[in-house]
């Protein structure tokens, strides 16, 4: 028997898992397509629900955008272990020498990518639907806070989807666990967006919300590192 194994490097394991998730998504196009369509439909319903296009909804922009993104995130996170669960691959992954936190990191990075693709559609659409004043010059700032918020969503979402994975009522458990955890992200995301749209450029407020999100991400990162082995191995 030839020995073909080295002590596996976590960087190679992480790259392999991310590549696998993206390949699966490219082939099936199930998760991102569902997220984008869901976000478009939600924003369209809100656009009709809040009045005509003559109304200036700038002051609601942050809330409308981040509530939509929060529900879209629940959809995306809920599908993050679907392939492993439905195709019964999880045992194969778990019997390999991959640190459980690397599994989390791979799923989290995939979710960040899916959310970013969704936001490529959502952020311009919010400007078209709800904002009458200046918007497009703030889009870089909105994208930045979205990127930070995506990390928060991905870390908390992957942890809760890992927990829900081993429960029978996982489709019910995940939103019940995950949505309350998203409340701070929605508040900070909406606040930061509101601080930079419609001609307002309150960078001090914007910075404060971004720092809050960074703190949230660090907190969930530590929780994930502390608990993820137990989630999969206990």
């Amino acid at each position: 028997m030839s020995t073909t194994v080295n002590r596996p490097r976590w960087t190679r394991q992480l790259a392999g898992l991310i590549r696998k998730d993206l390949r699966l998504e490219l082939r099936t196009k199930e998760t991102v397509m569902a997220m984008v369509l869901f976000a478009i439909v939600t924003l369209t319903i809100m656009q009709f629900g809040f009045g005509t296009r003559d109304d200036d909804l700038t002051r609601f922009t942050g809330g409308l955008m981040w509530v939509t993104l929060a529900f879209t995130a629940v959809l995306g996170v809920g599908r993050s272990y679907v392939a492993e669960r439905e195709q019964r691959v999880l045992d194969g992954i778990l019997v390999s020498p991959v640190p459980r936190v690397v599994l989390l990191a791979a799923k989290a990075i995939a979710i960040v990518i899916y959310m970013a693709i969704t936001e490529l559609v959502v952020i311009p659409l919010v400007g078209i639907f709800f904002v009458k004043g200046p918007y497009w010059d703030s889009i870089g700032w909105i994208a930045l806070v979205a990127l930070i918020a995506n990390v928060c969503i991905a870390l908390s979402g992957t942890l809760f989807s890992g927990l829900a994975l081993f429960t029978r009522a996982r489709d019910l458990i995940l939103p019940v666990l995950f949505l309350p955890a998203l409340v701070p992200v929605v508040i900070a995301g909406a606040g930061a967006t509101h601080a930079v749209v419609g001609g307002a450029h309150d960078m001090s407020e914007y910075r404060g919300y971004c720092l809050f999100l960074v703190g949230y991400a660090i907190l969930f990162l530590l929780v994930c590192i502390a608990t993820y082995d137990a989630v999969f191995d206990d």
Partner: protein
Amino acid sequence: MPDRLVSARGVGHIYGERAAVADVHLNVAAGERVAIAGPNGAGKSTLLRIVATLLRTGTGTLTVLGEELPGGARRARCGIGYLAHDPLAYLDLSPRQNLQVYADLFGVQDADRRIDDLLDRVDLIARADDPVRVLSRGMAQRLALARMLLHGPRLLLLDEPHASLDAAGTALLDAELAAMRTDGRAAVIVTHEVERIASVADRLVVMRRGRIVVDEPVAGRGPAQVRARYEECIA
């Protein structure tokens, strides 16, 4: 590496209030092929999953490939090959892509060449780039065989390995099990096919209600004798 690849002392596992495995003592030495048989619900697959580090032992101590579990689980996993009822493969990826995922997870060197060799060995090279979803059950299980052997494991853990394999896969697996008598590997085979034990295993372990009731050599017995002994144990 240790000569004793598995050492279980008083191992147990409880599902809810039912002891699925209780007070199991089992040693597996290098070169040994141990068959575990027993009626449904006897705890065979649970015991295999505990040794595979997929379940934690509730009681007792367990050492796999010289690593005490659960602390040494990650190091032990480097040398474990696990074959389950399911192929443990992503249906929307091809056999090659599936093996690439596992090569990354196990840190297999020169992975492309190794994958091609294995796909050739399990006779899937012509279907290497088709999605697993379109392969037959026998082909998918041959892919599982390739996945199990990919990283050159020292300890093979097989759960009903012959149940879904086609004739080609069965021949490959039996050849692999025959080779390991001399190359220092070991196998634990959970099976319902008691007659087959005479040809693929050196030891017969019979489980009943979570406990091992018999652990003895197979040597010199034919299929009918193994069947008779098994029936006697579970009567």
